[in-house]
């Protein structure tokens, strides 16, 4: 999928910028480059970008601050770049409104998949369908029914709430804290065992092989990502 609006890359490393640009241009995207936070924010305001790739370690303004300022007016997807041991940074950025993240070094295929997925979710946000299918599973969000193959699947209200959160955020990484807050409410902050227990139960009921989950994927130290499959 190509579009006319460019992708803005904010990274202080010239090699990373060039690599990102050539990879994305090969895929037909237009690309803008910024080497620091100030420049990045200025370009984001003047040009109508449709996606931002933001490195968290910038020399002038902290990446989190760039994200915060962007989010005061921009709704388009932001993908964070981070080092391997930066889980806390990633979680903070996701909770502050980033849509996805990539850990350096990433594979080019991974980068393209994330960009495509983020743009697809962004453009599809308006036409929310109440029925979703993945694998052999069919979920009707309005009727509160779930079937696997031809068999109805019995879910508890909490399991259903969790599943519909995943389905509505297909392709997006959801942090543990966000899931707790959305499904259980603010009083359950810190009761992180719930997400693990209920994700386990959903996998048992929906996955073909709960030991090799394909739909609800674990993101180490961050949360889960629901994927409807290829």
């Amino acid at each position, binding site marked *: 999928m190509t579009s006319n609006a460019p992708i803005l890359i904010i990274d202080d*490393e010239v090699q990373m910028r060039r690599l990102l640009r050539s990879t994305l241009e090969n895929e037909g995207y237009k690309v803008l480059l910024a080497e620091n936070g100030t420049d990045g924010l200025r370009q984001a305001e003047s040009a109508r970008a449709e996606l931002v790739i933001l490195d968290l370690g910038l020399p002038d303004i902290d990446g989190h601050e760039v994200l915060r300022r962007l989010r005061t007016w921009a709704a388009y997807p932001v993908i964070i770049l981070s080092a391997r041991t930066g889980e806390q940074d990633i979680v903070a950025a996701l909770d502050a409104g980033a849509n996805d993240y990539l850990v350096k070094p990433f594979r080019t295929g991974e980068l393209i998949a994330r960009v495509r997925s983020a743009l697809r979710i962004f453009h599809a946000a308006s036409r929310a369908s109440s029925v979703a299918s993945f694998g052999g599973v069919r979920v009707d969000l309005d009727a509160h029914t779930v079937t696997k193959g031809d068999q109805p699947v019995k879910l508890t209200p909490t399991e259903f709430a969790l599943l519909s959160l995943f389905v509505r955020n297909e392709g997006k990484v959801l942090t543990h804290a966000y899931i707790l807050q959305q499904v259980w409410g603010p009083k359950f902050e810190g009761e992180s065992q719930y997400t693990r227990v209920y994700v*386990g*139960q959903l996998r048992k009921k929906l996955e073909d092989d709960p*030991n090799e989950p394909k739909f609800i994927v674990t993101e180490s130290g961050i949360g889960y990502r629901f994927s409807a499959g290829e």
Partner: protein
Amino acid sequence: MTRSLAVMMRSSVGAPARQYAVAAVCVVLLSGALYAFVPPVPYQSVSLLLLFAVALLSLTLDVGPVVAAATLSALIWNFFFIPPHFTLVIGQTTDIILFLTYFVIASITGVLTTRVREREHRAGELYRLTRELVEAASLDAVAAAAVRNIDRTFGVRTAVYLSSIDGEVFTMPHPSSTLVTNGRDDTVAAWVYWNERKAGRAVDILPSVRPTFYPVSGPRYPLGVVGIDTGPRERLDAATEPLLQNFIGQIASALEREQLNELTRRTAVFAESEKLYRTLFSSISHELRTPVAAIVTAAESLTGGNVTDIGGEIRIAAERLHRLVENLLDITRLESGRLAPALDWCDAGDLLRSAVLKARTVLGDRAVTTDVPPDMPLVKLDFVLMEQAFINLLVNASLYTPADAVVTLAARVESGHGVFTVSDNGPGFPESALKHLFTKFYRVPGSRAGGTGLGLSIVKGFVEAHKGTVAASNAPAGGALFTITIPTETHPTEE
């Protein structure tokens, strides 16, 4: 009366013997002078003048000499002035009353005046101590002020023992001490510190040492010990002891104040060095990682074209370099002692699968099975650290097993511990290597190139950060077996 107060006044008035002499001389001279005027001066008036003299003496002399002056003047008045003269016999009843009244008033005046003076003197000493302690701007200055004031006020030699801020107990007195102690004294001082009770010569506890030791106690914990040597006197008398206790109380609060100051200073320095460490570490991490990340990503895009082989080689080398850099950064984090696991509930199956997924390219064609019981409860671990530990064990397995080996990961909970095993059906370890495996930079002799000997020591470090243990052995059926045991809370997975 009080020996030590006599000592207090030594500087202004003199030794006790001299005081008695002064008292006697004053009384005798005045009496002699008055004798010349009687009559016409009536002998009753002489008693008033003598009383006046005793009152004056009580302003400078100790209680003993004042009482002596009162007694002596009463006797002289009786002997020389009250008729019949030159006898101690008193003729008239009014004179008897007069004589007794004289004696009582002289004694009371003397004693009361001296007591007021004593009290004022104590207040003065305490005030001076407090002022010097307030001015002391370090623990050393507090110790020096304490020694100086106790020496001066009580006429003793003093040793001050201070515990260090880090809770280390003293082994010797502070260098400003004027009392020279021996090893036994220091041992008794330590006993006093721990038990917060007096000991030494003046008390029943450990009276065989020469000094007497007093605990210096803060509101929360003991701060130190004060030892005094009273010289020829066996102890401070009962009236002076409370003043010393008062001194020690003041010294305790000054010590505590300076300890808190010192702690604040240290915290500031520590925070500064912590900040420096973080800045340095993150900048070095960034500098090492960025070029490697660029090479890995670039090499990956090369492998698509007809230069597949060369691109693939670059990618494999870059990924190896990447692992090395990450290992070095991990070992640095571990050795800095700043690594604190972020414990959170983990699904053990998730943890093992995630590690396998990330080690997949290194594992190549090796079959990996995960064996987690269906009712395995949640365990509380740092997911990311433990995932890296398992990745390292998997990388290790791929380095030391043939390409068609089978690697098995298993998890279970046993009496409050999460037990994880990683095993393979490869050649296992030579027995002699087993105990060195987790040593940094150790590599099994004769193993092929491609490892640094850091991976397993990182595993050990991450596991130990969880207060757990890791052990390596040869499985009964052959092959390497790593067992990780971590104490953990558990939470059932069925609601």
